[in-house]
């Protein structure tokens, strides 16, 4: 049925993460399956779009033969997310993928859609506080289908120098793939900086590191910058930049090609201009791609959106997912080492002068024992193990409890965003408490998604 108007456009996903890699081949799509409730997730090939780089057309959609994060030359394939335009055609109408046909119905072509990407890398600026150290890329609005370089410019760069943040591409709709979508391909993971000094040029330590010399040390002060103890606004942790290893810690002036920013869409109709935007980030790969962190940005967004209390009955799949992520985290952690002298055991002493002690009884913290404990909880949710686990959870306002009992709460041995012991989001804690309560009353909880599932 032909449409006569577009009420609203949204870009989904609203927040997409790209991951760096130097291969010219973008990473294929894959999914997670969980064949064993306490085993590793299985990575399975999923429908992948293959794009003609020159025309921007989708040539095919198919499942690759295998999931391989590297190309034949061992270069890492960048994770390059697609962002889709969704629209509704009347107020409160359902959102559906916007297509070329919808535009044609309104007498428009895909070129009526205009995209703009604005990205920034403010790492040097965050330290030096010099606005001229901001590295910013802005494509301006455009509507063609060629790869658009995302070039970071900076007032303190040498003349003509830029850092590539990758490229964007408006995917040309076709009759077979008519949806309006954009793809962000991140940079290759290079390091940039100022010209090495003569001494540095002689040293092996400084050779073969920089992709390009971009930073002008006559204009900016990122090279040689140091975090001062007297400055309460340094980052936390402080001095986390490439440095010469000397005391005081002085910056070598290195920069990278990570970035974050905004993808914007604009569509001019006869009587109005529709606008939408999404956020994009380019970060490092997940090097253990068959697991997920115990607390994620997804959890933060869910709490910010829905609050700390549940409006509906707790979902079993959510509980399994939280516990699984805890297990996946400790499974790759040297829990014996983290129990004393490093990590939180060290931080408690160095930050607050706590007496130096292991966090747990050293006899029970071996990695295999800890993983086994998590598996038991996950396998026997109804048996009372979840109730036991829920009593051990650290609440968000207990993170400063450095007594033996306080430090042994869950999640253990990990650091939170406030620098002290990690607490889950309050909404995650609420889910576990409610599920444990229901199990104790021998009531069933909503099963949610099946064990073998995507996402």
């Amino acid at each position: 049925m032909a449409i006569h108007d577009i009420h609203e456009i949204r870009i989904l996903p609203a927040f997409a993460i790209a991951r760096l890699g130097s291969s010219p081949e973008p990473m294929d799509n894959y999914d997670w399956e969980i064949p064993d409730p306490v085993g590793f997730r299985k990575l399975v090939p999923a429908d992948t779009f293959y794009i003609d780089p020159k025309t921007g057309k989708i040539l095919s959609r198919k499942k690759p033969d295998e999931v391989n994060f590297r190309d034949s030359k061992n270069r890492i394939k960048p994770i390059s997310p697609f962002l889709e335009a969704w629209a509704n055609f009347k107020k409160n109408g359902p959102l559906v993928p916007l297509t070329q046909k919808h535009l044609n119905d309104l007498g428009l072509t895909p070129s009526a859609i205009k995209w703009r990407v604005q990205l920034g890398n403010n790492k040097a600026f965050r330290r030096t506080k010099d606005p001229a150290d901001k590295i910013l890329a802005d494509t301006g609005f455009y509507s063609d289908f060629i790869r658009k370089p995302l070039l970071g410019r900076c007032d303190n760069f040498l003349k003509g120098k830029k850092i590539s943040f990758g490229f964007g591409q408006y995917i040309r709709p076709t009759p077979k793939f008519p949806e309006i979508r954009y793809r962000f391909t991140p940079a290759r993971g290079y390091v940039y900086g100022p010209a090495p000094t003569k001494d540095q040029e002689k040293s092996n330590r400084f050779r073969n590191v920089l992709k390009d010399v971009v930073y002008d040390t006559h204009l900016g002060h990122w090279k040689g910058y140091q975090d001062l103890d007297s400055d309460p606004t340094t980052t936390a942790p402080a001095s986390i930049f490439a440095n010469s290893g000397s005391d005081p810690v002085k910056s070598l002036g290195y920069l990278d090609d990570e970035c974050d920013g905004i993808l914007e869409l604009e569509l001019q109709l006869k009587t109005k201009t529709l606008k939408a935007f999404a956020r994009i980030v380019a970060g490092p790969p997940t090097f253990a791609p068959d697991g997920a962190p115990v607390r994620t940005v997804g959890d933060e967004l869910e709490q910010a959106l829905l609050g700390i209390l549940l409006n509906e009955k707790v979902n079993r799949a959510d509980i399994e997912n939280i516990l699984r992520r805890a297990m996946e985290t400790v499974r790759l952690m040297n829990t014996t080492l983290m129990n004393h002298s490093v990590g939180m055991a060290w931080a408690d002493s160095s930050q607050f002068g706590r007496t130096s002690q292991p966090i747990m009884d050293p006899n029970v913290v071996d990695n295999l024992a800890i993983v086994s404990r998590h598996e038991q909880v996950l396998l026997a949710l109804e048996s009372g193990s979840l109730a036991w686990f829920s009593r051990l959870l650290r609440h968000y306002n207990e993170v400063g409890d450095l007594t033996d009992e306080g430090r042994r709460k869950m999640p253990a041995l990990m650091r939170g965003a406030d620098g002290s012991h990690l607490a889950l989001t309050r909404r995650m804690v609420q889910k576990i408490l409610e599920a444990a309560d229901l199990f104790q009353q021998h009531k069933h909880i909503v099963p949610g998604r099946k064990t073998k599932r995507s996402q």
Partner: protein
Amino acid sequence: MKKTSSIEPKNLTAQLHYRGEGNPPSTHPSTAVSNCYPGLEMDFRNVWKHVFEGIELLEYSNLVIGVDPGANEKIQRLISTGIQYELISVDGIPMTAPVTGPFRHAPEMIHDTMALEWSNALAEVLPKAGQFVLCKFQNSNNLREIISMELKVCHFFDVDLNRNGKVVNQRVVIAREMASPGDLTQSLCSPWQNDYRECDCFYWAASRPDFVNVEPGKDGKSKGNNWMQKDRTGTADKKYISDAEDGVRGNPVLVSYQDLFAAWEENLRYIIAGKDVPLNNPLKKVKTGVKKKSK
């Protein structure tokens, strides 16, 4: 991932969880660490800096570090006098927590306070977006001096408002005003590779592995490799080698900062099912670096 054909505009959960066609799980925020100290993909703490209209907070503590030039005189006072003010409560909810525990000089106990992370501390305040809430600021040098004022809570997500300021439409994208391009990654390591070698704090092990190739040893305890060990091909009992146990950072058996800056893709291995994923082909030296200009 099953294709989604339509979503109700008010079904914000579905929009938040939507991954997009062709996108693998690692494109979604549910795979990005948020115990940001400072984080890997982003330092999500930065998103809270502008949560109150008129002031800028430090991302990791409750210190006020800036005010809008057009803000009223009372707000200006939070930075203009050279005194540092810390936000200690919002709408009656404490933004700090006590720190207790045995001090290193027994039998003394620690009596301290710490700023709580914004995400959890402000969780009950966010629903009051668009409203004014009572904020109390404490002079960090004179704890008796408290300044109280009402500040407007900003909308965390992008919204449409009617003339009365009421939300008539909400989306799941973080509002523009909360973070400008570059803000979310600004306090991460520079370059990011630094973080993979920076400290013995492996709180993100699910994406930045620490203990790999783990198997039971003869004593029944776990044996495995440090992900940073260059050589982990030995058939003998595996040994985890760390900076902490084997001396200063710079242990040549571990990947160095320089190794990561110059060739991180060669030196960081994917770990699947807890084990090293073999490379597709034997390593060849990757040429990087700035070419010297000929004179």
